[in-house]
């Protein structure tokens, strides 16, 4: 499998009068072509900041404190703005969290889809309109939507519009940040199926960031679990769900309500503060298996079984 995106030791910090919030503190992973890669974790673990970092959308008081984001051989963090703008949308698209607020309230949908097209490719207005129409169709929206304004659409429809915009130029990589939050379950299913189709029918690569483990289970091929600014486990979805290695992952999965299970087990304790990550393994204050080494030494990422990596002292140098 060819690698499309490599994130190496990415750090996204936020300045404040109390110090730096280290939301993303050294994240490394790889995304392969034509897969759905999920990034999971609790709210506040730094997922959205990670997305900002990858797409270079970090705004003050946040800043990128280090790392590389290599997309098709180019480090997105280092190239000049002009080049980045050209790559954006044509190769690398973004579906933000909260589509409700991502649409310009005073411009019609049609114009909003077309302006992205026209700013990147030279074509006649008519052709761009056809492109927009076909994009809308592929997400299952009727033609009438083109002439509407954002406030006339429902939440689910707005989300689909955003997705339509994202795929209009057939990018290679689509990053979706919490695509199903704030939507009801029925719509959620539709969106998730849509995302799946992006990979299967259009050959795109999708990175899906979500705290909803069930969504990942449905849609993702591989998944990375994020906690306290770092990735603690990566692997194929089936492996990770069937055999979760990291104690945190275990907790996350057992927290998914499912028919048949009597009760839902949560993870005790509260997430730590990005101002002051715990020493050693960041999960140790909440971990039932914590030992002395966990409290002092940060565990490296090890491949425990083919394609299944984890950062935990439980899986140290042992047979």
């Amino acid at each position: 499998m060819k690698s499309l995106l490599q994130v190496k030791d990415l750090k996204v910090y936020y300045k404040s009068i109390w110090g730096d919030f280290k939301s993303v503190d050294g994240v490394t992973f790889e995304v392969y072509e034509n897969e759905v890669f999920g990034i999971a974790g609790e709210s506040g673990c730094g997922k959205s900041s990670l997305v900002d970092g990858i797409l270079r959308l970090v705004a003050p008081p946040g800043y990128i404190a280090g790392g590389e984001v290599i997309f098709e051989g180019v480090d997105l963090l280092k190239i000049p703005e002009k080049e980045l703008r050209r790559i954006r949308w044509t190769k690398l698209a973004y579906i933000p969290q909260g589509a409700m607020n991502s649409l310009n309230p005073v411009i019609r949908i049609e114009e909003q889809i077309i302006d992205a097209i026209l700013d990147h490719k030279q074509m006649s207005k008519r052709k761009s309109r056809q492109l927009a129409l076909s994009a809308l169709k592929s997400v299952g929206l009727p033609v009438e939507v083109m002439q509407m304004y954002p406030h006339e659409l429902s939440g689910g429809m707005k989300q689909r519009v955003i997705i339509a915009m994202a795929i209009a130029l057939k990018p290679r990589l689509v990053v979706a940040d919490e695509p199903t939050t704030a939507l009801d379950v029925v719509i959620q299913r539709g969106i998730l199926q849509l995302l799946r189709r992006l990979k299967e029918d259009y050959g795109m690569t999708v990175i899906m960031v979500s705290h909803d483990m069930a969504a990942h289970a449905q849609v993702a091929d591989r998944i990375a679990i994020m906690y306290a600014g770092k990735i603690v486990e990566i692997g194929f979805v089936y492996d990770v769900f069937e055999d979760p290695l990291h104690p945190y992952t275990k907790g996350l999965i057992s927290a998914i309500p499912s028919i048949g299970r009597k009760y839902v087990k949560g993870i005790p304790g509260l997430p730590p503060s990005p101002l002051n990550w715990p020493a050693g393994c960041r999960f140790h204050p909440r971990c039932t298996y914590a030992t002395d080494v966990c409290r002092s030494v940060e565990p490296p990422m090890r491949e425990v079984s083919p394609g299944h990596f984890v950062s935990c002292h439980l899986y140290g140098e042992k047979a």
Partner: protein
Amino acid sequence: MKFKVEASGLRDKLSSFLATAKGSKRFVTGLMLLFVIAGLAVFEPVINAVRLGGRKPVEIGLFERGLPPSLEHPLGTDMLGRDVLALVLVGLRYSLMVGMMAGGIATIIGMVIGISSSYLGGRIDVVLNSITNGILILPTLPLLMAIVAYVRMDMLLVSLTLAVFTWPWSARTIRAQVLSLKERPYIMLAKVTNLSDLEIVFKELLVGLIPYIVASFSFSVIGTIMAETALRMIGLGPAEIPTLGFLLGWAMTYGALAQGFYTLVLAPAVLLVLIFVALNLVNTGLDEVFNPRLKKITGL
């Protein structure tokens, strides 16, 4: 991801305020400017007594007419032989007095109306709010002028009249803030206990309103001084209260510009502008201190 630092108690709030306040260049500059101006006004009687040897600055013919600026008369003399600097200092003092009195009254009225309107809500709010907005939108200066033209006034009455036309600004600001504070948990908590409404207002609400009250006060002072100056320029208002506006109006009516008495017009005008600028800097500074997010965004 949010990170709250709870500052409990007035003392902590005050010290944290001072700490952040020092960081705002605008606030500090404005405050210093204010102190200088206020100092001048407060010490005016002393300064003038020393310079003029105990004679009143408005006395005609103390000095030679139309002297250009010199060491002895830094702003020259006017066509009636009065030292311009002395006149201007007197004007400053009276302007500030009227401004603070009228501004104070306006702020108090605005507070009362603003708080009652938003706190009591319902029909009272609708009525009071409409009145407030109505006065804000309409050009009230002509009406103010008409009233001052027809009625003989003293300082108190002038201040009152000015205040009546200036309170909507503070009422609106305070109402907005009370509306947002009203839904906060600690207010709802207070309501559940046996505290009467008045007590709630005084004990809980007012503390959160203090920055807005201060801001309203400076706005009101600016507004009243502006209105007062406008009145004066046309010649309205009591002549016994020689404010800076009075000085300006007098100068204009007696053709100071045509005769070349530029300092007589420049000095009061510049002082007025300085007062406004100082108050505004303090206001903007206050805003930045209490809205640190704004500071980040405006990129100081």
